[in-house]
């Protein structure tokens, strides 16, 4: 929850090429598989205090693979 809305991150597995920028910038939100490709942790819900990290992850993904979904 952030600002009353549920905000989630999601990595598009077809776009991710394993640059690891999201993992470096928001380690609490993303995890890597054995090849270094990224995936959102759990259901991707961004906890309070992680919103800035989530937006930074999106702003630094060279493949535009990080999505932020506000519900």
């Amino acid at each position, binding site marked *: 929850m952030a600002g009353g809305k549920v905000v989630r991150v999601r990595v598009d597995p077809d776009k991710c*090429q394993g*640059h*690891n920028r999201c993992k*470096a910038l928001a380690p609490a939100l993303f995890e890597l598989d*054995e*090849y*270094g490709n990224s995936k959102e942790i759990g259901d991707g819900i961004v906890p309070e205090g992680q919103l800035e990290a989530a937006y*930074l992850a999106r*702003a*630094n993904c060279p493949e535009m693979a990080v999505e932020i979904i506000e519900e």
Partner: protein
Amino acid sequence: MAEDTTRTRPSVLDWSTDWDHLAAEWRDNPYPIWDELRATCPVAHTKRYLGAYLPTTYAAVKAIAYDTKNFSSRRVVVREVRPEPPMPSPPISSDPPHHKPAKQLLLPPFTPDEMKKLEPRARAICNELIDRFIADGRCDAAQMYTRHIPVRVIAHMLDVPESDGDQFIQWIHEILELGITDDDILMKAVHEMSMYFAGYVEARTKKPGHDLISRIIMARQDGKPLPPQEVLGMIRLLLIAGIDTTWSAIGASLWHLAKTPADRQRLIAEPELMPTAIEEFLRAYAPVTMAREVVQDTVIEGCPVKAGNMVLLSFPAANRDPAMFPDADKVILDRQENRHSAFGLGIHRCVGSNLARLEMTVAIEEWLKRIPDFRLDPAFPVTWSEGTVRGPRQLPFIFG
């Protein structure tokens, strides 16, 4: 290496129709050339190199990198000759569907967690190098510092003598710089490199260790080991891709800090900026330019391109595109939004990107800890490599 960078070439009169990435103006300062082309002719052409295109916008570079159907990686260097068949070095020279299985063999040893294990050795290497020249009050940082770091780290990973590093650097110079115009030198270097590693491959096939050569030998694709030629190709690739690239990136970063005291002081005062600073150095001074071969006629950003031509895929030019990066020509240590393409875009993303970032971070941190105050020595020139990988090859500094 500077002695080889003076070969004479026909002058370039029009960069949009006759560009030459081996021209002295390009080698010394390519950015104004790219800026002008981006504004006037975003996909330039040359008849040199048997015909080749040069895209300079981020959008064009990205479109080509993503289009593996029309743009093949079977050749990844723009050279004056195109021998058949091209020498395979999977996965960099592979197209789908062969690319992914080859790449997946190499990815696990290069994850961020694997790289963390190398950090103590990398820091020790940097300090051993600094110990050798710090008392002199000056050094050529390209020759005495930056060039030795990646080669020793990769030797450590391959478990071959770090003291063979100078030989590796010579082979890479012959392959990536001299080989652009001289096929005999290239073939000889590839052969020597293969002979050198064939001995290790044979020994570790019998008695594998935990090193990277053993991991490639032990890897299985569809349950089978790789053919010996592919094992050697991958080892050659790791060496070629991992050495003068990062050497160049560390050197360009230190060059920037030497000539920009405000940035140097800021980075020392605010070490927490190191991660964004490293990304910004990678963007502004991206060392690696790749290539593709056009295999079907197509259109890129409105420009028709014809099969049979090569494309010089300039990630460094893409990284300076103001349409993608505000103040693209400025180095901003805390740039918040930075989708730079220094490690490529699409399926051929550099396998060693986490290693390069580790080496850059460690090399700059250790340097700034020991030598916080340094500047360019006006008595000597800074010289740059030419061709596929751009970085300083002479970097004269005075300390204090």
